[in-house]
């Protein structure tokens, strides 16, 4: 009797302690309120959602441009858009979808939001840098789109080959808008790469050794490293182009012994890893969703991880397959054919492991899995036209035709947009706390799936019939009319599908069923907290016992104790075996990242017009950085190893 009473007292005290802890954490980690508060917020959940919402808006805008192009090409010799307007539209469409939609959504959006949750920590590493990256990204997007809306948009294609993009053939500021947008978005992506890689390597929950790290985190780590190595190439090349245009350097001007082909090498040295930067996040989502919805650990964890790493490496040795038509020597071209074909092996391995996961699982066929099957059916078409394109002789025939347009839309929409929707249907219940409507989800899927195939499948045939890409019109006698009309009708279905999604989101947000902490019964740590997660992510920081943390958890799985709740303290663990090492204070909310982003943006934009903007703009940039890094006065908490408790 007495023992029971004592146990009760202990229990009540524990509840009180937890309640007090909860309130303290909520106070410590609270998001700043008010209008200015919005700009000072450095929480990864807030920034992650902003990335997703912003890139989705750009997705809708890019879709509008696609619709305009399909309208123009529906019939031969139409005059809805002139060549000038059409060139701006396809340039901005491509640049938007690559730089402002897929990378910010799949790498930055999903990564920034989910990685700290999956690691079981309370915030991302370098949260201010992370917030800064978001504002810089928005600056780049605005620059590109304001140019288009003023009818002085970039018009040299999304890879802007000189000499066409050089000062002689593209006078004015159009190409500068494009080149500087590249700088903006790449600064943003590299900043996030640093944040994500650090978070993954140092902030994982105790017990989450490298061998237990979810595949999603593995792929984000590989991606971050790819971003760090690939993006500098494109920033260099866009800066060289700007220098050619602004201060009269002659890097790419053949008339002054410059080299037009150098640009292509540098651009595609970035450009092909970029393709895998677009695809790997999709593969990460598929691996994660398959485990959750097949109710089993992913089959072939090690081969999949090895495949992802191998893809990361191989992606840097295939860039010349974008240049097979330039007339390089056959031996070197063959090397790049071989390297390109090699990528089939790791990608195939992932597919086979996914099949085995489904085969030996207990498949739950809800909306996220519907989108995953859509991914398989569509991405595979693009994936298999890849080896066809890798072959030099065939590539010289279909390169720069609608066959390639079909190929990369199957790869990017199949690999990134289908998986984006799969991921959104899977994680929106976590982010928003509500379930999406199943019926509307199905309507969305079928409209989008049918429309997508109707739009892009005929393009394969158009390419074989000799239709080059980037033509604003075509003569009626070319027999391209019927298939183009079919493609344009398909675009209507796709647009309708996306609108159904938007409607579904808004309606479910308003009146959708509550999701609960773990609606899918999934095993990742992000499901170990409430939906949506509180500002401090986890009341009790979890520890990990296996690859699917929640499924493998012991009945009395320990939690992390010893972190202060009155300051924003994080646990730093060892990068290999995730043993607790240090406590670290997370940087707090601050207006400086926003001001620094404004200063950097003004410098970038100014440098389009006058080279003096760089030295002059450096002054406010340095000033804001000084403010950002100014010592807070309070000394950082003493490093101290944190214990665990059952």
């Amino acid at each position: 009797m007495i023992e029971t009473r004592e146990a009760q007292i202990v229990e009540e005290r524990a509840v009180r302690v937890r309640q007090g802890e909860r309130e303290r954490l909520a106070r410590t980690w609270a998001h700043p309120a008010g209008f200015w508060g919005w700009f000072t917020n450095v929480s990864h959940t807030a920034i992650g959602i902003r990335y997703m919402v912003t890139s989705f808006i750009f997705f809708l805008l890019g879709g509008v441009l696609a619709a305009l192009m399909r309208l123009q090409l529906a019939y031969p010799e139409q005059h809805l858009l002139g060549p000038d307007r059409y060139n701006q539209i396809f340039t901005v469409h491509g640049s938007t979808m690559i730089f402002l939609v897929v990378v910010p959504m799949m790498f930055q959006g999903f990564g920034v939001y989910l990685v700290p949750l999956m690691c079981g920590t309370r915030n991302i590493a370098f949260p201010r840098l992370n917030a800064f990256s978001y504002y810089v990204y928005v600056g780049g997007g605005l620059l590109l789109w304001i140019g288009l809306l003023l009818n002085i948009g970039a018009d040299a294609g999304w890879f802007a080959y000189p000499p066409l993009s050089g000062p002689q053939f593209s006078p004015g500021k159009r190409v500068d808008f494009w080149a500087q947008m590249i700088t903006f978005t790449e600064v943003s992506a590299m900043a996030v790469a640093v944040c994500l890689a650090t978070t993954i390597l140092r902030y994982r929950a105790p017990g989450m050794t490298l061998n237990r790290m979810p595949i999603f985190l593995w792929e984000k780590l590989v991606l971050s490293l790819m971003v760090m190595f690939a993006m500098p190439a494109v920033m260099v090349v866009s800066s060289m182009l700007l220098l050619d245009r602004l201060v009269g350097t002659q890097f790419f001007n053949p008339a002054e012994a410059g080299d037009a082909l150098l640009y292509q090498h540098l651009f595609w040295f970035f450009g092909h890893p970029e393709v895998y930067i677009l695809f790997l996040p999709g593969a990460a989502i598929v691996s994660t969703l398959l485990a959750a919805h097949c109710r089993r650990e992913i089959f072939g964890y090690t081969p999949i991880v090895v495949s992802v790493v191998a893809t990361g490496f191989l992606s840097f040795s295939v860039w010349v397959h974008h240049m097979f038509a330039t007339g390089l020597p056959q031996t070197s071209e063959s090397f790049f054919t071989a390297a390109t074909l090699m990528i089939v092996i790791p990608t195939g391995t992932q597919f086979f492991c996914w099949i085995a996961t489904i085969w030996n699982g207990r498949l739950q066929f809800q909306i996220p899995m519907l989108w995953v099957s859509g991914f398989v059916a569509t991405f595979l078409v693009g994936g298999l036209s890849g080896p066809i394109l890798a072959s030099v002789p065939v590539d010289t025939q279909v390169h720069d035709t609608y066959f390639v347009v079909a190929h990369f839309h199957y790869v990017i929409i199949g690999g990134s947009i289908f998986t984006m929707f799969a991921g959104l249907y899977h994680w929106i219940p976590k982010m928003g706390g509500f379930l999406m409507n199943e019926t509307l989800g199905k309507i969305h899927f079928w409209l989008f799936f049918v429309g997508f195939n109707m739009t892009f499948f005929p393009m394969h045939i158009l390419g074989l019939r000799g239709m080059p890409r980037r033509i604003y019109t075509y003569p009626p006698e070319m027999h391209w009319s019927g298939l183009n009309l079919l493609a344009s009708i398909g675009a209507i279905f796709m647009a309708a599908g996306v609108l159904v999604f938007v409607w579904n989101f808004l309606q479910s947000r308003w009146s959708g069923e509550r999701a609960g902490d773990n609606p899918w019964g999934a095993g990742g740590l992000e499901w170990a907290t409430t939906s949506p997660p509180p500002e401090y992510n986890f009341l009790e920081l979890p520890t990990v016992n296996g690859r699917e943390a929640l499924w493998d958890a012991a009945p009395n799985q320990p939690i992390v104790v010893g972190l202060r709740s009155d300051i924003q303290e994080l646990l730093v663990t060892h990068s290999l075996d995730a043993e607790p090492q240090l406590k670290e204070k997370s940087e707090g909310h601050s207006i400086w990242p926003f001001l620094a982003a404004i200063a950097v943006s003004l410098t970038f934009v100014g440098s389009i017009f006058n080279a003096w903007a760089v030295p002059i703009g450096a002054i406010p940039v340095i000033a804001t950085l000084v403010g950002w890094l100014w010592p807070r006065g309070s000394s950082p908490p003493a490093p101290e190893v944190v214990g665990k408790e059952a």
Partner: protein
Amino acid sequence: MIGQDENPARALHKWPRFPKIAKRRAAGVLANFSAVMPGGHSVLDGAASQGRHIERLFSVLFFVCLGVYFLTLLFFAIGGRRSYNPAEKPLPIVKTPEADAVAKWWVGSAVGITTVLVFVILVLSIRTGMYVQDVSAQNSVTVKLTGHQWWWEVTYPDSRADQTIFTANEIHVPVGQRIAVLTNSADVIHSFWAPSITGKRDLIPGYSTAFSFTVDRPGTYRGQCAEFCGLQHAHMGFSVVAESPEDFEAWRQSQLTAAKEPESALTRSGQGVFLTHACVMCHAISGTTAGSHVGPDLTHFASRGEIAAGLLPNNPGSLAGWILDPQRIKPGTTMPPNNLSGEDLEALVTYLESLK
């Protein structure tokens, strides 16, 4: 003169043995498919041995990939059907060691087969590449191709100046002979592409490259610029006219002559209009004082089938419209509008159309 390599039947025998049957069948089925494709401008309707080699390789790759596609989907579908579980949130299984041990063999074999297929594709691709990209020193005809925004300068170079032919947008070649093409560009990057002949080759300023092809079916084959080159990239067409060696020689001889002297009063007045207006700033007509090579050479203008780089048929009506207001027809083209009186225009058009 058909060399050994040019003989398509022989070339077929050079393929490795293993996929030969598949290849024949594949080529057959795709040939039926290409029957619904219009002729003269299609990857699947090769008129040159290079184009046909690529077509055959494409067919093989197409059917291999088609097979892989449906096999993969089939396995996904069977797997999904097999493991489908309608219960709501069944407990996770986490591990299935026995079933996974079996799956390991399947996945391993699939990866193995993929690896083998990849190497087969690589070998086939390199073999075809060696044939298609082969540039020999012995060519019966050499064509120098220079890209301009937005037309093609075609030159048949010869060490003797009076044996050099200048023309535009129309490449005449003899059937069955090896043609070497030297590429260059005067402004931005363009790309030569006649789908029925062979793969494309970029024309890059500052680089001169060479490739060759052998057309073996007489006819006119359309081509188009395939590298985005600015406002009128859509209207940068050309044609390859393949004719018998005798017809080609006749064409060559006629091109070597100076422009036809005007014979009637109307054509004489037309020549006067040409020589006293802006035309001479850019165009050349041999035998007259017009010698600028900024725009297409018009010496044998009337012998060409199309004007404005494949955009309009070469007839007096479209020529008159083109001369008056090219910007309406091809917005952005470098040719300026010309304000000519009715008589002057008629005389000019008649003169130009007399330049056979």
